[in-house]
């Protein structure tokens, strides 16, 4: 019964029990027969000690502020370390006068802070310097190497020209040499080792405008057929978009582009063939490849234009060396 007398008195006052006298507590509190009428803001400690019947709707103990405030609000509210308030409260309780200014320890700590800040700043600027200088040195290296490459290329070109000139002068010196040289030239024209010039026809082929399907596009096999037909009607040298077609040339689909000599081509494809410019065009349309192309042009709208040229120059193929193929016996 005594606990029930005490409990409502405490919770209404909010003051320590020692500070209140029994008489006003008696006058303030409700009749002891009605403990459920207690105010809801009862401290949890007392709730545990209370032996009376519990109401089902009794509120939960108040959760800590950190749990209800939300992180940002809590951070803002407790931005000052609580220890300061705690220590000052303790000190006030003990009756010690608070120190007004930071002492030697504070000075030392602030000096440490200053060192930290200065060190961080110095370090950051030093790192920036380092990265900038390393970038500058990289750029310089790249430029140096580029200049070196240019010089070496120029030297290689000069040496090649010199070799050709020496070859010429050597071969021209003797009759046998001149014979070898004309043979070399002929082989070069046939094999694609030297540029060639002469009359011929130019065939320009391209995808149909706005092509969506495979059939409306130029495929590697279409180009192959065209080139084969050109050989068939007597072409002596052929190039596709500046790539000389030799006996080592492959025309094939590489990814989404057609490659010739392993170099990717772009539309439109210009096939130049040196030969009899008056006959080749007509003969071409008579071959199977020519007929295929006529069908492609008529049915799918591909571009297929044949023109005669009085003089064309086809480039040399890139020099290549044979590593395995040998003559069975030396030619005399």
């Amino acid at each position, binding site marked *: 019964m005594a606990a029930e007398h005490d409990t409502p008195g405490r919770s209404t006052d909010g003051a320590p029990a020692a500070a209140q006298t029994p008489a006003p507590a008696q006058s303030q509190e409700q009749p002891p027969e009605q403990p459920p009428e207690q105010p809801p803001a009862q401290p949890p400690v007392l709730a545990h000690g209370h032996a009376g019947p519990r109401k089902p709707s009794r509120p939960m103990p108040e959760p800590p502020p950190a749990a209800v405030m939300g992180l940002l609000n809590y951070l803002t509210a407790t931005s000052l370390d609580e220890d*300061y308030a705690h220590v000052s409260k303790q000190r006030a309780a003990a009756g010690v006068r608070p120190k007004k*200014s930071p002492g030697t320890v*504070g000075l030392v700590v*602030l*000096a440490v802070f*200053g060192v*930290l800040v*200065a060190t961080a700043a110095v370090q950051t600027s030093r790192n920036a310097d380092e990265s900038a200088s390393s970038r500058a040195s990289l750029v310089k290296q790249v430029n140096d190497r580029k200049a070196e490459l240019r010089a070496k290329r120029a030297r290689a070109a000069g040496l090649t020209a010199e070799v050709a000139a020496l070859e010429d002068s050597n071969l021209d010196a003797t009759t046998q040499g001149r014979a070898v040289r004309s043979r070399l030239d002929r082989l070069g024209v046939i094999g694609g080792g030297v540029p060639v010039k002469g009359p011929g026809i130019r065939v320009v082929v391209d995808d149909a405008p706005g092509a969506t399907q495979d059939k409306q596009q130029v495929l590697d096999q279409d180009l192959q057929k065209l080139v084969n037909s050109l050989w068939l009607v007597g072409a002596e040298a052929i190039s596709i978009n500046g790539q000389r077609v030799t006996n080592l040339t492959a025309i094939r689909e590489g990814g989404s582009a057609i490659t010739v000599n392993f170099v990717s081509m772009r539309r439109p494809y210009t096939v130049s063939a040196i030969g009899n410019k008056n006959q080749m065009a007509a003969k071409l349309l008579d071959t199977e490849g020519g007929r295929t192309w006529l069908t492609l042009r008529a049915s799918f709208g591909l571009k297929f234009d044949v023109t005669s040229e009085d003089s064309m120059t086809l480039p040399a193929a890139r020099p290549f060396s044979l590593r395995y193929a040998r003559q069975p016996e030396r030619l005399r």
Partner: protein
Amino acid sequence: MIAAVGLLIGVLLGLVLQPEVPIWLEPYLPIAVVAALDAVFGALRAFLDGIFDDKVFVVSFVSNVLIAAVIVYLGDKLGVGGQLSTGVIVVLGIRIFSNVAAIRRHIFHA
């Protein structure tokens, strides 16, 4: 006054000596500085509130610096160093801002 003197001495020392930071400590230095900044602003606010205490300042300074560095170190080891540094910076930044706001109210009464 004594605080400003201490700060000045520290900055001058750092600039004059230019101590070499070991490479393994380098990632933690900036975050340690931010943590220290938080402790210093907290101390300034406490000073203006009249509840400054040497011991609390020292303890909060050292623990702030150490904890910030340890959190980043731990994050590095776990592979979330960048994210954890961001988290630490955000929390410390909010605290610094609200402390500075309180300091401003003290000084300008606004």
